[in-house]
């Protein structure tokens, strides 16, 4: 019940801020859409006509995932820096629920809200490109869930680092390119990549959305890697976060002023 109240409060806050700063939100979505149109036009202009359709389909899926991971992971870092400067981070840290629980529900609510946005963008992109992908919700949902959990793990690592390092902004800017690499690299480059966060998951989603794979056509081994990654990165993420929180409490870094 306390978890649920925590989740409700944080989802509401996020929703209010998104609504109150609607112009920002719209500008962000527009930017996303314009970049997509640019990419789409680029593929049509210079791409090989024989692979054009599949290139566009890859672009849609990769780009959508990059947007989601970027929104979730980067925003938790920026939020922490922002709250450390404004001082509210100390209030969060004093919650008897524990800051890691607040961060967890924030990750969940950010993902949920952004997922809604991503779905809208996905249909918009498909309509623009005239390419209709296989949106098999039943198959995609479990893959997405496990992928998102490993994404949370990375989010926690970023959150932890953001608490103790003040000049983390520069790193967050680089991070979006790292995320881009992780979402754009196909697994066929090297099978070891499957153990990086969310590479495996996105590969499986591509399998479903582009190649029309059904649930029973997916490999059990792939799901196991996905499950392992989810657990592994989430555990590492929480561990790093709790460690960083402790360092901050020892050195008095919870407030950056």
């Amino acid at each position, binding site marked *: 019940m306390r978890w649920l109240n925590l989740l409700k409060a944080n989802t509401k806050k996020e929703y209010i801020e998104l609504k109150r700063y609607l112009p920002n939100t719209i500008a962000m979505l527009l930017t996303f859409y314009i970049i997509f149109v640019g990419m789409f036009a680029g593929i049509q202009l210079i791409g090989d006509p024989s692979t054009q359709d599949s290139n566009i389909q890859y672009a849609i899926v990769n780009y959508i995932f990059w947007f989601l991971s970027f929104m979730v992971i980067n925003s938790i870092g920026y939020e922490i820096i922002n709250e450390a400067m404004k*001082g509210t981070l100390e209030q969060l840290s004093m*919650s008897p629920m524990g800051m890691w629980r607040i961060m967890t529900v924030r990750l969940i609510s950010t993902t949920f809200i952004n997922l809604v946005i991503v779905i809208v963008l996905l249909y918009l992109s498909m309509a623009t490109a005239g390419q209709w992908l296989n949106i098999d919700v039943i198959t995609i949902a479990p893959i997405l869930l496990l992928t998102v959990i490993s994404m949370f793990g990375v989010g926690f690592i970023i959150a932890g680092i953001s608490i103790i390092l003040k000049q983390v902004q520069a790193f967050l800017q680089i991070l979006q390119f790292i995320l881009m690499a992780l979402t754009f690299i196909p697994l066929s480059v090297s099978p070891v990549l499957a153990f990086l966060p969310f590479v495996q998951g996105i590969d499986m989603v591509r399998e479903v959305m582009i190649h029309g794979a059904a649930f029973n056509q997916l490999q059990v081994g792939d799901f196991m890697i996905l499950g392992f990654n989810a657990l592994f990165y989430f555990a590492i993420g929480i561990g790093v976060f709790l460690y960083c929180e402790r360092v901050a409490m020892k050195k008095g870094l919870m407030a950056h002023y």
Partner: protein
Amino acid sequence: MESIIEVQNLRKTYRKRRSKEYVHAVSDISFKVNRGEILGLLGPNGAGKTTTIKMICGLLIPDSGMIRINGIDNKEKRLKALRHISAVLEGNRNLYWRLTVRENLEYFAGNRGMSRKDVIDQVEDLLLKFNLKGKENELVNRLSRGMQQKLAIAVAMLAESDVILLDEPTLGLDVETGYEVREILKAIVRDYNRTIIISSHDMDVIQDICERTVIINQGKIVTDDRVENLLKLFEIRAYTITLGDILNSQQQQLLLQKFPQHDYQQDTYQSILNIELAKSEGIYDLFDVLKLNNTPVEAIDRRTINFEQIFMKIVKGEKQDALAQSS
């Protein structure tokens, strides 16, 4: 009486940024606070008030020492201990400026695991008591500094914690709002059974609200006593003596020997002597000096010293002297 907060041998050292120097912010602080007590934490800039408060709030881990909140060790069971505590920290940094008054109250309650329904009555009550009714849908960044501070206190109240810590709650407020916040604090003391710890440099605030004060300077406790006792301690021995003549040089010499701290002002026919006696018998020494030249005494007034003067004396280490000499 049952103590709800127990602080023992607390120490905290900070390392200065980009150097190997250390700052001993708190060195060996111990005190207890009883349930329902209003404790003032008083000290000059850099005394270690904020550091002490943050350690009690679990925001800073002490280098050594122990803190118990309602019997719970806040090192071993940090989150459990935090249930009994809420705090308004220094400055205007306790609220979300982009949310409204009501949204802030509800959000912070949610962060402690409470639902909107759980707190709906209390929110109404607090809005009324804190004179924030009618402002509830206003964004916090549009509120005056005083209102923001009141809201921050309301948020801390809503947490239903036994202990509320307030770090410099009237700092940066103008006289009028400072006074209003003080009235609110008094109302909390009167109407709600909470234990409160207030830090301040403002003696007036402490004298007005607190029953007991712990005075710290350079990370150490200088005194821990009831406010009225501190006032008494100094009140009895300060005199203003109006003389019907001026003192001759021999008298002045003697006076300087016996009362090095005195203050003497003279004009042609009259003079005024301000004196503080280390012990009550000191008055006889004074009379001996006056008798030398049969200086007429026109009036002897006992001066009241305000808390600020006491504080300054204590910080300068005069209390030890006063205590030593009076015993």
